[in-house]
């Protein structure tokens, strides 16, 4: 009986473990992000650089509908700067007293203005492919920021031998299926950073991912610092409970 059970158990464990070892798919390279770990926080200078990358490159095709211009205050932009950034875009408002819709400059309370009026227009403008909204992109993909960085830097001019990529598609090491409709979006020196940071392709990608991660988890800084304080409190409380428990139970030992 016992022998039978042990061998069944061994068979089950083996059968599960073997295919798990043979798991396929390219491993993502882990980058060091400033916000990793319980003490991690965003680097505001990096977020501002990332916002610059988004504004100059990504936002030509990708919307970020969940963010509002007022949220940029968290990156260290002043109220006037935020107003100026918002005012670069036009939004439709109305109806006014005459019953007409009208166009006005965006205000800090407005959401980020999308590059295309609707998904259909976005597809027409992008060879049939729909550029996804980036508001939650680092939370919405397995691998998170490492994956987005992998896609941004994973383009190869020539696919490996035996792989043919159709017209209008590009080879990418990180993208599932390796065939992506987005052209390589960034290259060295594509942006000029005001703070003098050297704009290598990798640097641009990292800054962009940092900004996107902030867009997906704007609460992260507060979450981490509140978490440390809360856990310290709970830890002390638990130690006290344990001491009290030992004391109350002393006469039962």
């Amino acid at each position, binding site marked *: 009986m016992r022998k039978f059970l042990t061998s069944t158990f061994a068979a089950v464990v083996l*059968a*599960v473990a073997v295919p798990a070892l043979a798991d396929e798919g390219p491993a993502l390279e882990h980058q060091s992000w400033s916000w990793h770990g319980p003490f991690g926080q965003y680097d505001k200078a990096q977020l501002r650089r990332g916002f610059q990358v988004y504004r100059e490159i990504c936002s030509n095709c990708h919307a970020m509908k*969940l963010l509002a211009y007022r949220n940029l205050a968290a990156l260290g932009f002043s109220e006037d700067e935020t107003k100026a950034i918002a005012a670069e875009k036009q939004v439709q408002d109305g109806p006014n007293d005459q019953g007409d819709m009208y166009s006005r400059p965006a205000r800090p309370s407005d959401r980020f203005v999308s590059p295309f009026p609707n998904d259909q227009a976005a597809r027409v403008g992008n060879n049939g492919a729909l550029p996804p909204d980036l508001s939650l992109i680092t939370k919405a*993909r397995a691998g998170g920021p490492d994956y987005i960085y992998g896609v941004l830097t994973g383009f190869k001019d020539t696919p490996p031998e035996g792989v043919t990529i159709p017209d209008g598609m590009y080879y990418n090491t990180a993208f599932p299926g390796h065939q992506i409709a987005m052209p390589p979006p960034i290259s060295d020196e594509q942006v000029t950073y005001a703070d003098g940071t050297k704009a290598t392709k990798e640097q641009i990608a990292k800054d962009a991912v940092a900004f996107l991660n902030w867009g997906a988890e*704007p609460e992260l800084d507060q*979450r981490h610092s509140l978490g440390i304080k809360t*856990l310290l409190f709970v830890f002390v409380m638990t130690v006290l409970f344990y001491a009290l428990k030992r004391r109350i139970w002393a006469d039962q030992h």
Partner: protein
Amino acid sequence: MSGQKFDNKIIQWVDDRLPIFSVLKHSAVEYPTPKNLNYWWNFGSLAGFMLVVMLLTGIFLAMNYAANTAIAFGVVEHIMRDVNYGWLLRYLHMNGASFFFICVYIHIFRGLYYGSYKAPRELLWGLGLVIYLLMMGTAFMGYVLPWGQMSFWGATVITNLFSAFPVVGDYIVTLLWGGFSVDNPTLNRFYALHFLLPIVICALVFLHLVALHTTKSNNPLGIDVKGPQDTIPFHPYYTIKDLFGIGVLLLIYLSVVFFDPNLFGDPDNYVPANPMVTPPHIKPEWYFLPFYAILRAIPDKLGGVVAMFGAIIILFFLPWIDSSKVRSAKFRPIFKQVFWIFLVVCLVLGYCGSQPPEGQIVLVGRVATAAYFLFFPLLWVLGKLEKPKPLPQSIAAPVLKGASAGHAAQPMEKA
């Protein structure tokens, strides 16, 4: 129960008219509890604590949520971004479900190991299983509310299961959906039920406690309490032990909430629901995975559904399937091993449920499903064949023996 005397005149006045203080004193203060309960007995109160956390966070989330497919996804993000500490409420609630299930699963397996389902606790066990079933329903409907891709497709797959039943299947599915596909009426009724079911759970938890206080707690030795020398009052001994347990649970639970809040989640649920795009791997939340694996192990749709529901229903009959009169696995050497294998089988099933059903996984899933159901007849045979170890005279007896050998034995922590 009533007729307690209190020093405070106001308390006495109230108690003479409504015996709340007598009841509290009887069942939360003086309640005689076996003195040898180990830390596995903490998980009942921990599950109760998580229920309260879920109710409190849920109420405040409900104040900011709107069950409409056009805006539900955005409304949850509005809670995350614009509501004061909305992200905290939402992450507490979302991870709270996982920790509620962790506590309940440990609670169930503890009952299994120490034979807590056996006479006279059959109804206590059955009530617990009904609570567990209601929890699964509540959690499933709660997962639909953010209206992400996995919400939508999980709801589609699971509700479609009911169509497997002959004749009435399609009617049930239409009734669940409130139409002919998962859509706005589905979201609305799921929200209403997600609010209603926890209230039913609370009522059943009350009954669960009444049944517990009638039959009294089981204990690691699985033998009956022989007299007052075997018990200690619930307060302060178990109140402080439960508080300590809550502290430890909070440390782990809050670590996840603050530092890795999407640990149990699926990235696809941060993509808004889209009926036109099916995610590559539709899989339910982790606490359903063993049953999902059983569902997929049977090649026939109706057979799979019957097996899945049967896997839970059969647990209700456990008190009568298990033919051994000895409760605790401590005195059942073979059952003890079978128990651990059963636990591993459940974990293997969970792993299979999380993987796409291809290649080896299909085979492993089937073997594990067979092993799951084999456990029950085995339990019946085992009770007939197994020779249990001699049981101690009473709970106090081994304690007294240990005491004579000095302070080495600490029975209350070691079981």
